[in-house]
């Protein structure tokens, strides 16, 4: 029987371990919204670690979220490998210039040290500060790039996509290097205090590459990396399936605990994969959270809860990161809808 008052950690781990939670957990990828909500610009997250940590703690307090997040999707490994990262004043960072222009550049890539190189030590410090702030009761989620994504970023998407036909050996050599470095950073995140490792790979979905290419160039390297992070002590792997992944969800579930769903019918997903993974999602981030009314948010959240929560393997969330300009009223509507549902369903 579920305890009446689980901690956030117990609640999230309960759904991961297919045990009954005291209520449906609530997790949002919230780096940008959190900064705006705290009155800060995005770039300040890279200048003042305490400011970022405080922005996450404020979200936990105000919206009863069940996890804090690091600065999601900062391509720190790619930057440390030599790619140029741009950090706009109030937008997420991007790889502006790749660094691998062909097979001859492979020799220039070195094994990076997560504790010393580039922006990685700063990000690890944020994870440590988050963990210190929330203790054992709330999980810290930290983001790591999967190898295929890093390979795309340091080579260039277009070039890597064509390399898969022109020079598959080169792509695999590059992926080996990416895997080694992405895994090292993922393990460092765990060592720094991350409980959940979040992964996203929007360049390997059904909108972009074939299932055959996914099986050959993306999946084996990701699966290996996830396994290594679990061995290093990660309590859960949360895979954000940005875009469509219909034909490859079976593979995505390997070594993964939570699928942060984008464009799926959440009820069908929990029915199809609930025995293997927890479904997290999928109120529409832009159409509903950013552009919709409070009523729309409530309606869509309730629809998700009523179709997916009964399995016990569900976390309420948006289908992607909550956009920076989302109104606090819409986030509150999400939290309130969940609270009312939990009250009716669990008495919690």
């Amino acid at each position, binding site marked *: 029987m579920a305890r009446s008052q689980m901690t956030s950690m117990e609640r999230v781990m309960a759904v991961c371990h297919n045990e009954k939670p005291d209520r449906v957990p609530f997790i949002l*990828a919230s780096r*940008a919204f959190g900064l705006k909500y705290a009155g800060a610009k995005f770039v300040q997250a890279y200048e003042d670690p305490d400011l970022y940590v405080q922005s996450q703690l404020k979200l936990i307090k105000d919206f009863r979220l069940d996890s804090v997040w690091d600065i*999601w*999707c900062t391509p720190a490994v790619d930057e440390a490998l030599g790619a140029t990262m*741009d950090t*706009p004043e*109030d*937008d*997420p960072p*991007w*790889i*502006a210039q790749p660094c691998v222009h062909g097979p001859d550049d492979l020799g220039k890539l070195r094994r990076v040290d997560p504790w010393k190189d580039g922006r990685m030590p700063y990000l690890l410090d944020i994870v440590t500060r988050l963990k210190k702030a929330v203790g054992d009761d709330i999980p810290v989620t930290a983001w790591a790039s999967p190898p295929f*994504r890093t390979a*795309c*970023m340091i080579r260039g*998407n*277009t070039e890597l*996509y*064509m390399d*898969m*036909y022109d020079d598959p050996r080169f792509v695999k050599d590059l992926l080996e290097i990416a895997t080694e470095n992405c895994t090292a950073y993922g393990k460092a995140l765990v060592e720094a205090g991350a409980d959940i490792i979040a992964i*996203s790979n*929007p*360049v390997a*979905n*059904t*909108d*972009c*590459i*074939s299932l055959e*290419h996914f099986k050959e160039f993306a999946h084996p390297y990701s699966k290996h990396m996830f396994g290594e992070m679990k061995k290093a002590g990660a309590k859960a792997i949360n895979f*954000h399936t*940005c*875009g*469509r992944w219909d034909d490859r969800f079976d593979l995505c579930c390997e070594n993964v605990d939570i699928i942060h769903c984008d*464009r799926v019918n959440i009820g069908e997903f929990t029915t199809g994969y609930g025995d293997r993974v927890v479904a997290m999602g999928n109120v529409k*981030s*832009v*159409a509903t959270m*950013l*552009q919709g009314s409070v009523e729309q948010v409530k309606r869509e959240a309730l629809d998700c809860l009523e179709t997916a929560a009964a399995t016990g393997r569900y976390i309420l969330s948006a289908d*992607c*990161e909550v*956009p*920076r*300009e989302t109104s606090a009223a819409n986030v509150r509507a999400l939290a309130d809808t969940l609270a009312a549902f939990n009250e009716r369903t669990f008495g919690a």
Partner: protein
Amino acid sequence: MTTEILSIIDPVTGGTREISGPSNQIAALRELIGLVERGDHNKVPTATEKALETGLSALEVLMNGLQAGLAVVGERFKRQKAFIPEVLMTARAMKAGMPVLKPLLTATQGKPQGVVVLGTVKGDLHDVGRGIVGTMMEGAGFQVHDVGVNVAPEVFIAKIKEVNADIIGMSALLSTTMMMQKATIQALRDAGMRDTVKVMSGGAPVTAAFAEEVGADGWAPDALTAVEAAKVLMGTDWNGKFVSGAALSRARAPAAAC
């Protein structure tokens, strides 16, 4: 010489069309379509020359060979049987034949379906999705001027003036930067150019409702639909009403925003 019939996908209409001709011409076109379809860019220039040697005009080789090959993969892409790498490979192969044909196309034959300025709005550095749109538009006969990423309104305007563009296509892949589409449209109004250029809006977070609300003329959720929408906007019977692309969700750019 016997006459043969070849069924191709018309690169302009997207429909199936039969062409007939001497067997050597049909064989040359069939080979060219196959090479483009397989992305074999190294063999395309020679095959293009061979096709011309059979007596086919440069326009016939372009439309019924190179562009028809790209259209085959475009159709597959629409049905999720081909993906971005395959489109990129095919586009490269198609373009490999153009240096052979360009000097032979007359000014009239070379006239594009329309002149398009494509770019990702200011503050946004995504380029793959926009690149695919440009490739598919070129394949369908548009002249495309890609001004890249992080494009300020004044840069769009300068390019539109320079090339006398019919269409501006704006991409935004972030929910934060999509508002720059509105700012760019306002800049076109301020420059007195809003009525002389058609505005297309796209990008992963951009919905048809958003595009219409900010004052665009057309929106498409994917590269193939973008081509179709551009054709509607260029049509003489376009009535000025907002053109919303079909609900075909392919070719959304790999955002890497999440």
